[in-house]
């Protein structure tokens, strides 16, 4: 077995420890390159936000790059860059996470930065205000893309009660009115060691690294994140629809069905079902989207793209803590109406509900998923992401067992989840129906 594959599939080489303050630490030695990666994960995402505060988790993520007690604002940049390193962060529905990857001699600095981020960020009022407009710019940039706009509306329509319904970036009105104290309160509540997982992978020594972790994080006090308001999305009783009619050139279709959470036994048959319908993506939110799926022979590709109805299709099933949606997306070929596209897509969905999949399709889907698991673990950054991601939404131990779980899926499992989950009453259909632009003639042709 090659080295990174061993690392990704072998839970036994992960050292797990929980510090006295509740911080869970996962360390895995991988000596394939003179690099180390650190990921700090927090169990807080946009599902932890209520009305008036949508987008607060993501805004807090931005604020946590803007200086701390021991890292003055003007010294933030350069700490990792001097080691040739890369840093970033992201927020989604279940999680907020921060990462650095650099040469191994930067490890102490990476841990220092993440310890500061957990315990000592500043939230200067002027910085909060300046970031407000940056985030509104991020939101408006997203709105320029009709596909993204439709996705936002579709999700908001598919969920009636669950906080998965609002976009991670938040609603504009909330971004305009949220205060510095809202941000700081959210930060102090959720950024405590007992709500976090620290993952370190790479060319490191486990014992020495654990010692460094204790040095940097050991004195950070635990906190009470309090009660998280939770609800279960009520069963959908009938199909829902949303249509955006807006100036544009291209029609888009999205079809969402409520999907199983990662810990649900149905998740793996759904993964196989998606591979059959749109090609296997793998399960790495950080890496998978960078490589398109093998999908030319997938059912929806054949039915929509090869027939000329769509210029592209995609399926989205992502591991989540609570039941999210499985979304099928298609871009209409110029001149094709979105209702024609929907008719063809729904026909394929109904066919798989009726007939299930063939043993040949099952075999191919498993091969694809196995290959994707290998391909998406091609770097220490990606391996560390998966450990932290799965620990945040379920357990990191679920990840090494993923290949075996996929292998155990049967044709009957897939037929059953297709019949149950892809019911019309469990479905939300979204259209972006473009109307011609009034200033079309002024465009460059």
């Amino acid at each position, binding site marked *: *077995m*090659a*080295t990174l*594959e061993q690392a990704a599939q072998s839970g036994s080489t992960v050292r797990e420890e929980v510090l006295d303050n509740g911080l869970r630490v996962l360390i895995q030695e991988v*000596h*394939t*390159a*003179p*690099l180390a990666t650190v990921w700090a994960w927090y169990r807080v995402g946009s599902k932890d936000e209520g009305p008036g505060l949508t987008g607060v988790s993501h805004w807090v993520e931005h604020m946590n790059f803007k200086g701390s007690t021991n890292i003055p604002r003007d010294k933030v940049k*350069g700490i990792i*860059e*001097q*080691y*040739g*390193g*890369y840093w970033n962060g992201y927020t989604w529905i279940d999680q907020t996470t921060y990462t650095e990857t650099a040469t191994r001699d930067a490890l102490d600095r990476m841990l220092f930065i993440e310890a500061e981020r957990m315990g000592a960020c500043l939230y200067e009022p002027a910085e909060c205000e*300046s*970031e407000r*407009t*940056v985030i*509104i*710019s*991020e939101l*408006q*940039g997203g*709105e*320029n893309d009709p596909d993204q706009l439709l996705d936002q509306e579709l999700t908001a329509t598919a969920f009636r009660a669950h906080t998965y319904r609002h976009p991670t970036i938040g609603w504009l009105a909330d971004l305009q009115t949220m205060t510095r104290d809202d941000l700081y309160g959210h930060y102090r509540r959720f950024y405590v060691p007992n709500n976090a997982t620290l993952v370190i992978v790479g060319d490191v020594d486990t014992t020495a690294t654990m010692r460094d972790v204790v040095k940097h994080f050991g004195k950070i006090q635990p906190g009470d994140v309090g009660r998280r308001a939770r609800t279960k999305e009520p069963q959908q009783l009938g199909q829902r629809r949303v249509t955006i009619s807006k*100036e*544009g*050139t*291209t029609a888009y279709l999205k079809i969402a069905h409520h999907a199983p959470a990662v810990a649900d036994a149905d998740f793996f048959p759904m993964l196989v079902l998606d591979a059959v319908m749109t*090609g296997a993506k793998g399960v790495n939110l950080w890496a998978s989207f960078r*490589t398109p*799926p*093998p*999908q*030319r022979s*997938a059912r929806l590709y054949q039915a929509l*793209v090869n*027939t*000329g109805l769509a*210029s592209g299709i995609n399926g989205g099933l992502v591991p989540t803590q609570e039941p999210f949606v499985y979304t099928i997306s298609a*871009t209409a*070929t*110029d001149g094709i109406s979105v209702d024609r596209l929907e008719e063809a897509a729904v026909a394929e969905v109904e066919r798989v509900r009726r007939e299930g999949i063939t043993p040949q399709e099952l075999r*191919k889907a498993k*091969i694809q998923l*196995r*290959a994707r698991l*290998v*391909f998406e*673990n*091609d*770097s220490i950054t990606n391996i560390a992401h998966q450990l932290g991601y799965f620990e945040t939404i379920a357990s990191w131990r679920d990840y090494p067992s993923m290949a075996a779980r996929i292998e155990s899926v049967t044709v009957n499992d897939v037929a059953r989840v297709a019949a149950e989950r892809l019911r019309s009453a469990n479905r939300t259909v979204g259209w972006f129906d473009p109307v011609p*632009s*009034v200033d079309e003639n*002024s*465009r*460059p*042709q």
Partner: protein
Amino acid sequence: MTLLHAAPLRGLSPAREVLPNGLVVLTKTTAVTPAVTLNASIRAGSAFDPPSIDGVAHFVSKVIDRGTDTRSADQIAEELDGRGVSLAVTLTRQLLSLTCTCLVEDFDVVVALLSDIVRMPAFPVEEVRSRRGEVITLIKQDEDSPAVVAVDALMAMLYGQVHPYGRRSRGTVETAERIDSAVLKGFHADHVRPSNVSLAIVGDVESGRALDVASAAFGGWTAAPSPGVTFPAIAASPARRTRVVPMMNKSQTDIAYGFTAITRADPAYYAYSLMNNILGQYSLGGRLGDSIRERQGMAYYVFSSLDANVAPGPLMIRAGVNPSNVERAVASIDAELTSLVADGPTEQEVTESKQYLIGSLPRTLETNTGIAAFLQTVEFFGLGLDYDVRVPGLLRAITRDDVHEAARRAVDPSEATVVVAGPYDGSLS
């Protein structure tokens, strides 16, 4: 472990062989995943489009893997999908590239399939028809994207309609309607020839065996070398030019602000590269990011890029801002450039950017795909197989004065071309 750690010191040390037909094979063995990345780069990018029709190379990229003389599109799809392989066909101004990663056990079969696709695409009429719909949809999507509209308009203004860089890579709806199977076959026959191809093979396969498999698949291909592209001279803009493209249905405005720069072979390349890093790359967008994003909170993204290539590619600054901030953002870009031209960078900035660019090499070369892309760059520009070892020295040799001189030559705002596309209909100065 000792051996693995010694690797960066002795460098990547790839192997390079030229087959008798002129095709270059680059190999590098790594054993980190049981997979192999294949990257076939062909000197047949959009710069090679016939003078009368834009978008031919792009159309080729959409149909080349849709059937060969011996395999139907469905057969190719089955052979790839059945192994979990997705073949990405991408296009730049210079290169048409076919890239994929496969499991080690599939290596021989996938190389043979790749060879068939590169050498003998059939461009079946039915596939050309259905892909035409995709191409036209992509063109329409571009026309609805302020980012793409801004960059296309900037390139057209910088390079004009004669220079290949000024033309639209995807063409227009009208050209897409005109491109048929015969046009695609003609382009393939003219430009996809063994002497224009370099194949990088990186992964868990021993170099000698990789070369044998590549030779067996590509060695029997014969065709005379084809002439390259001659790029016309570019008339640098003596004065500032601006253009506004109103797209009032959008939320955010995109700014594309640029200059024509230098070729990759220019001795000033490393000074330009450092200047670009300081201006709009380092950390969160260099000086531009500090000013426009961090201090003024005007944009989620602002950065600069340098495309020093066979032709003098652009140095481009990009930002997405609220329409009410367009004038302020452009003025801020002007101010940063004026300062860089007048005073140059600080010693500290030069040192930091050098450290970053040198230190980032091990990350760039961590994955098979990263190594394959690096090897193709080395091959395309003739940088030498020891380039990864030489880069640190090349960068360290650059002085603050060199970077300052690059700024004086490259980014005088009085010679800038500025395009704004989005929900903005004001006038720019």
